[in-house]
């Protein structure tokens, strides 16, 4: 229905818009920052049941990549939705800790893997159980693992351990790291 309204209005106003007559003047350069609806939706959907924090694990505070993990470690996939329907993309200024970031809590080495796990949790779990897939291969890569096939075999074999109970992406990420260290062959092929 929203699309309908928009298109209707588009129709009514098309000539005006095309002629670009009523251009709005922007007084200030920075764009208004706002969350998207989808981000809000993600807040609700990305949690599967209550997710308490795991002691000793850092929070992710995300600026650049658009990540936020609240105190209770619930994950808000705030990757913005840059569709034509419009949203607020993080500007280039908001790059990995250079501006507007309060803290960069993960070690630099873990950042890529942890943010990847958060963003791809749903697809990742499925491919971990199946032991293969592009999403899983990229995850292996973020952990510095060259042998993605061996990595896939490991996640399939240890799926129950890696994702037991009320798992969260961050918890899963640390367990995967742990598991790599328990496996001498993998440890050799990964740069964890």
């Amino acid at each position, binding site marked *: 229905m929203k699309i309908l309204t928009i298109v209707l209005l588009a129709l009514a106003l098309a000539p005006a818009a095309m002629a670009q007559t009523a251009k709005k003047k922007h007084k200030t350069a920075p764009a208004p920052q706002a969350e998207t609806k989808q981000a809000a939706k993600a807040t609700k959907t990305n949690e599967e049941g209550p997710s308490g924090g795991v002691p000793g694990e850092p929070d992710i505070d995300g600026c650049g990549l658009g990540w936020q993990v609240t105190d209770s470690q619930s994950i808000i996939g705030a990757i913005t939705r*840059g569709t034509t329907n419009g949203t607020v993309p993080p500007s280039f200024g908001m790059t990995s800790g250079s501006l507007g970031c309060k803290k960069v809590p993960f070690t630099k080495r873990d950042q890529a893997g942890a943010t990847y796990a958060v963003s791809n949790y749903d697809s990742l779990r499925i491919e971990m159980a199946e032991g293969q897939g592009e999403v899983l291969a990229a995850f292996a890569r973020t952990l510095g693992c060259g042998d993605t096939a061996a990595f896939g075999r490991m996640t399939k074999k240890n799926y129950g351990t890696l994702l037991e109970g009320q798992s969260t992406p961050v918890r899963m990420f640390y367990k995967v790291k742990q598991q790599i260290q328990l496996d001498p062959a993998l440890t050799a092929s990964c740069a964890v």
Partner: protein
Amino acid sequence: MPAKKTLMTIGAAAVLFALVSISLSMPTAARADAGVIDRAKLDALARSPYWLRLLHYKTGWLGHTRSLVDGPEFFFSKEGRTDARAELVATLAAFSKDLKVGRLKQLPQCAFPERYRYLKSELGPGVLGVLGIKDQACPQLEEFLASFNAKSATLVFSSAYPNSPGSMFGHTFLRINSNATEKNDLLDQGLSFAAAVPKSDGGLTFALKGMLGGYIGQFARVPYYAKVNEYLNSESRDLWEYDLNLNAEESQRLLLNAWELETNSWFDYFFFDENCAYVLLSLLEVAKPDWQLTDFSIYVIPGETVKAVTRIAGAVTGVKFRPSLRKKMYQRLDALDGRQRELFFKVIGGKMPPAEVGDAEVLESVASYLHYEKQKGDVDANNKNAPLLQATLLRRSQLGDVGPARRPLRPVLEDTRPDLGHDPYRVGTSSGVRGSGFFQELNFKFAFHDLLNKDQGYLRFSEIDFPGATVRFLPKSGVWNIEQVQGLALTSLFPMTFLERRPSWKFNLDYYSPKDLPCTTCQLGRVQAGAGATAEIFSPNYIVYALGLLDFEVGSAVRKGFRWGPQLQVATILNPWPDYKMQCAATLISDLLQADRRKLYTLFEWNHSLALSKDWEIRAGFSAISPANSLMGSPIDSKEGKLTLNFYF
């Protein structure tokens, strides 16, 4: 001593003031005139196509040339938006100064690295030295470039949402391919341009502001995996990846220009022209100075971006398709046999715990289905499904690989590839007979796609038509008649499946010449809206649908100045070959204000369309309208047949 110190301070201030005044009032132009850069060289540089591209100068309809960029901070000169030479002079002047510019408060050459690189290569380091310009370190820029590690670039197009013709325009963005060894596309960075919309802006505000340029367009760098997640999984749209023939240096130029735009300025975002598609093309023109891409008129549709690029010989080196989560799910489900399908329903219905299932294909299908369902964002359903998904995955992990025993998956339908689709504008001519009289018609429309068009590149069985008109000439009486002025037509026919039951719907706004009235040159304004259901008949190529519509018409041709009533349409569309479509529709029309006479009419339509090539098409149509409950002949010329030749461009 204090007096002396004050004097010194004043003296220093005076000298500083003098210096600043000189540098402000006698910038490079003066020095250039004095012989550092000769005037001819400066003029040539200011007129060079590449310099104009860096500034995003475009020539409008009326022949006026100005930059597309709306933020004044993109220009060092006050006249920079319209005067490329003034901007060149001011840019050179700024490069020699210790200024902090833009959002990141950078040195001018860090804020405008591509301008700097270009001018340095054109003028030579010697000349820059004389002008007092020397290379500076730009740590933020370096970090930005390092995050891409650019090797090449890919143009990515997202198709429409299922059941949503309004999104058929799609969206385009870039993926910057990294130079990593054994690279995984998901780990590359995406570069997109989109409108920054505050959350508080709802439908109406959003539409108005979008149309009038009330939003700011911004670039964003987002990991490609996040984009894939967003489109493929959350929104179930296909992605088409067009690898562009860009080398590392050209990709870097693109990034540098994006940096100049994003850290200093903004574009007003217009839905119709200055949108994601147009700005990305403008960036590609910087990367590839010999590509001419932004010659669109009136509006730019993202799908047209792709066509613009594919039209250039050698510009695209490869095309890759990523099917949506929905398509992948159905692909898996379709591969199940009867027994497996039974098992599948038992598991998703909670009648059988996944732990008891020994068939990996069934479990994978269940996981795929639950993944797809989860994207719909129904919190309660997801909480309910979470343990089932977890149990399914756990069980799946305990079984071996499906391996070679796996049933072959039917190839996913690659029907959304945009560059193979017909062009949006249409012009056509028809010859036909109505009753006993011949007629000739001309039609034109701006966009986009209707139910009889070949669906390649578009959302299947859906329609979105923008302004267009059809005029009819009757040679017998020498009369020209407006047959139809189309405002907007939207139709979404979404075939129901055993898993998904979504309504189909239709909306139509037009001004047309009614055929049930005893007049040949009268018109009525018409709004119709309604919903119904669609089903496939044995194959995805054949559908049957029923729609209940409410119709409201205004005009002096009807007695009270308006009429209204419900309508019921039952129709089928057969699409046995991609190039041919046949539609057969019967509509029962009521007029609630016509109490004294026949209340019901039936309209029968039988249409064929044959795509001769991407942009040529022939249609044949027959229609008949008659009072439904009258055995007597109709007082009006009720039957019509016509043959149409359409060209898309």
